[in-house]
């Protein structure tokens, strides 16, 4: 599964993209898995209300299932326009 990070999430984790093997059932499970890895993930995922997630390039909720998902992206609320 490809995991992408944007804006300050990318900066805190220190890379734009990584590939991981996971059995996580939902986005929330995946976040818990990442948090358990290293301090930089804890820093990036400390406040979920400041985060958004997209599954295969569509906005999703944190309780969304990861079944069949190929690309997960984490980023702050968007500031376009």
């Amino acid at each position, binding site marked *: 599964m490809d995991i*992408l990070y*944007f*804006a*300050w999430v990318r900066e805190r984790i220190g890379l734009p993209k990584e590939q991981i093997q996971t059995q996580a059932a939902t986005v929330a499970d995946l976040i818990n898995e990442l948090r358990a890895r290293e301090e930089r993930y804890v820093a990036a995922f400390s406040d979920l209300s400041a985060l958004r997630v997209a599954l295969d390039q569509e906005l999703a909720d944190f309780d969304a299932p990861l079944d069949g998902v190929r690309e997960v992206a984490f*980023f*702050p609320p*968007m*500031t376009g326009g």
Partner: protein
Amino acid sequence: MRVVVQAEPFDYAAEVDRFAADRSDIGALVCFAGVVRDTDNTLSMMEIEHYPGMTEKALSKIAKEAKDRWSLGDVLVIHRFGKLTPGEKIMMVATAAPHRAAAFAAADFLMDYLKSRAPFWKKEHSRESADWVAAKQSDETALSRWS
């Protein structure tokens, strides 16, 4: 309908002039441009990051929704990414409709949606620091007008 995501500057006047030029059933054109603002004279550069792939999809979805909802004759969205300096145009939208109410409403809708539903992130660089622009609660509230 045209959606463009690019790093290069765009020619606003030429885009406006060309927009819906071949249509004779259009009575109203609304064109809006967003510009890099330097309120306190401290901004040296505005950096815009985006999510290639999702950006184009999200913008197309928003543009199509506006087109269907207001029966627009045409709709145009251009959004830049990369490094921009104060005064540069970041983006533009244009809407074409038989009457002005629909053209204005659709442009307003497009702006509200692409502010908080298109995957762009702005970072303001000054001489001393670089800070990510925080999303405003008012941007989120603005969306509820349209549901």
